[in-house]
């Protein structure tokens, strides 16, 4: 079955979505990620969606849910690399993802994660 890889980098988990998201894939990712956070007790999660160029309301909600659940499991979450078209679509759908941290690219996202973890 198709899965989205979750990479570990020290205290952080790195999720790069390189394929078109479909509903089942998003659900699997949600399960996998929560498993991995609890197993590795990661302090931060970085989700890179720069390759994602199409979203629907379901995927939009999943992105929000994934960020929310990692936050509850005490891992800071940063969403990076959202494409302009995706951002516009989400705003038009009314999904403003409140409470989700964002950054322009992976590098800045990592910096932000480090800052957040240090603050704690």
């Amino acid at each position, binding site marked *: 079955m198709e899965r989205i890889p979750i990479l570990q980098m020290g205290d952080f988990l790195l999720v790069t979505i390189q394929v078109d998201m479909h509903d089942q894939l998003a659900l699997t990712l949600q399960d996998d990620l929560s498993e991995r956070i609890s197993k590795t007790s990661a302090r931060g999660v970085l989700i890179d969606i720069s390759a994602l160029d199409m979203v629907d309301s379901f995927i939009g909600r999943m992105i929000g849910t994934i960020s929310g659940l990692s936050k509850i499991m005490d891992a800071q979450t940063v*969403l*990076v*690399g*959202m*494409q*302009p078209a*995706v*951002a*516009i679509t*989400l*705003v*038009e759908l009314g999904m*403003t*993802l409140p409470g989700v941290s*964002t*950054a*322009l*690219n992976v590098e*800045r*996202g990592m910096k932000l994660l480090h800052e957040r973890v240090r603050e704690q």
Partner: protein
Amino acid sequence: MAALQSSTLDAMKKNQVQLVAEWTNSLEASGATRNLKDHDLKQQTSEFFELITSGLDHGNGQNIAAPGWDEIRQFLEKLSHSRALLGHDSQQTASFIFALKGPLFSLLQKQYKDDPALLAEQLWEISELLDALGMHTIHTFQKSREAVIKRQQEELLELSTPVVKLWDGVLALPMIGTLDSQRTQVVMESLLQRIVDTGSEIAIIDITGVPTVDTLVAQHLLKTVTAIRLMGADCIISGVRPQIAQTIVHLGLDLQGVVTKANLADALKLALTRLGLTVSKAV
């Protein structure tokens, strides 16, 4: 229904010079020749006359969509297009064709004064043909005008959305004119694309040039701000004039979590501070 008699056509050809002269005169009298050079008008009238007689010569009948009328249709398309560019209105353009009726009808009246039935029939035929040509002219005129308007609209849209780079990592978007849905869309797209291209962390939207802010405009602004935040950049709104601030408060709009500044300078100062830069006087 009887077709156009060849005697009618002969009469038209024989009196061509006189007809064209009368036609031109009546065009000038009606004021349909505004901005047109005499020379151009003469050329256009005689060319049209040539085309219509040669079209009738080939017995093409009244259906101007037929291939035999290709040339005259093209001529009229070119004519109405040039009239549209000159700023003539539809009436002036249409009267180019309809002014031919007067001289032509009086010619026919003379020709068939002994046969009223034939006269009526021929008048009908000619009138039908000229009406069809006139309609075609108006149709293409309208299309040309619409094309002109559309082009201007697009140019205006392009003109009004320049994204400028103020500093490394700071973009500014000076908005001018009323914000409607379509413009917001274009503005949002070009700004977001520039943010990706330049990797800028801060975008300043300056609304000094926006005349009024109502609930819809505020909603558009909020949408843009949210989209920028989702991309991972920050947004500052600057140029909030006193009246606009009052309007926003009176309308009870909630610019939740949006950083606003009174002018662009303050916004740039804040942006520089956020980037950890300071501006100091050279000693």
